[in-house]
């Protein structure tokens, strides 16, 4: 048990920032991101200690995180496709003091626009550009062919560009 705990502790250290960032960009709230991320690792730990076969802890945690975000929006009565009209009322104030301190105006604009993207585009852009995840790995997580992921990546970037223009 102690050995498993140490192993998961290492997984936690390795993925906590990545999962938090992934969730934060999708919910645009520090508080909610912290709650969901805690829940993701709690579920991950429950599964890990029950000796379930987990070959890729990163993919496993991202999968839990995706589902948790979906659950969160479901509970909030929102669809996974976020309407741009409703965002100002639902999200936090947008650019937080923390964001202002660490992110440039352009980067903040990208962050705000990612939040408005379709869920699948969000996931692919974050994984590929922020976390440097190869297309093949993304394809495995999303259970889609690599070619489809490439197309989605292209479309996601295009849509993001348009959203930035609009903002």
């Amino acid at each position, binding site marked *: 048990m102690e050995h498993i*705990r140490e192993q*998961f502790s290492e997984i936690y250290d390795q993925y*906590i920032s990545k999962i938090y*960032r992934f969730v934060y960009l999708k919910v645009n709230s520090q508080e909610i991101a912290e709650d969901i*991320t805690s829940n993701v*690792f709690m579920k991950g730990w429950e599964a890990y200690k029950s000796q379930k076969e987990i070959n890729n802890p990163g993919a496993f945690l991202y999968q839990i995180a995706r589902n948790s975000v979906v659950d969160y929006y479901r509970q909030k009565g929102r669809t996974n496709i976020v309407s741009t009209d409703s965002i100002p009322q639902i999200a936090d104030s947008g650019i937080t003091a923390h964001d202002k301190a660490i992110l440039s105006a*352009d980067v903040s604009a990208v962050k705000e626009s990612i939040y408005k993207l379709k869920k699948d585009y969000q996931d692919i*852009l*974050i994984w590929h550009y922020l976390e440097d995840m190869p297309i093949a790995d993304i394809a495995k997580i999303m259970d889609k062919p690599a070619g489809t992921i490439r197309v989605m990546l292209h479309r996601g970037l295009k849509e993001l*560009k348009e959203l930035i223009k609009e903002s």
Partner: protein
Amino acid sequence: MIEKELIKNLKALNEIKPRKDWVILAKSQILDAEYVEQRVISKPAQKAWSILEFFPSFNYQKQLAYAFATLALLAVGVFGFAQYTMPGDLLFPIKRITEQTQNPMQVAYNRSEDLVQIVKENKTQNLDSAISEFKASMVDAAKKLTQDLAQNSDNDSIKLAIAEVKKIQDNQKQLETLGINIGEAKDLDNVLALLVQEQIDSLNDSTLTEGQQEQLAEIIELYDEGQYSDALEKILLITN
């Protein structure tokens, strides 16, 4: 914003990081809480429960065990309380059951003590039962004494018998002073009379000094007066 710049800005979002204090807190909440909980529960206890959980029927047996423990406590309470009862009380039969392992002479003495107590406390409703119980116990005591003396009539056995009889007789005298005469303990007297008679016969056949002959005369006198326990005490003085 051109695509290259967009990708650069996307990568810059990597600067978003969780609060360090939250990272540590969340980790401890997820991992350490359970770890501490495991440490708090002592390992033998945990092992015992896991064994119990392995056998589902043990849960049912646990209930039975609790029921049994409750009954056992109740029984101990009843038996304990019964020790303070007197003849005529509801729980006295339980006290009598617990006394079955005791020497009948001791039981007879207990009944004589009960009787004295009842008379002193003026518990008239218990008096008839107490007298009956005392008489019954005296019959049992006489039987036991006869058996014991038949098997082993050495001086030590006689001494013990005399001590018990004396204690009972003291209580009888006390009762008489309180105005209760329960009559002579004929069964016990008969046993003692027989014993004194055997001892007198034995002494008559023995060669005695002058002093011992005088003592034997006194013993015969006590025997004739029905003071068998006193006669036996004197017999023991000669034979020792």
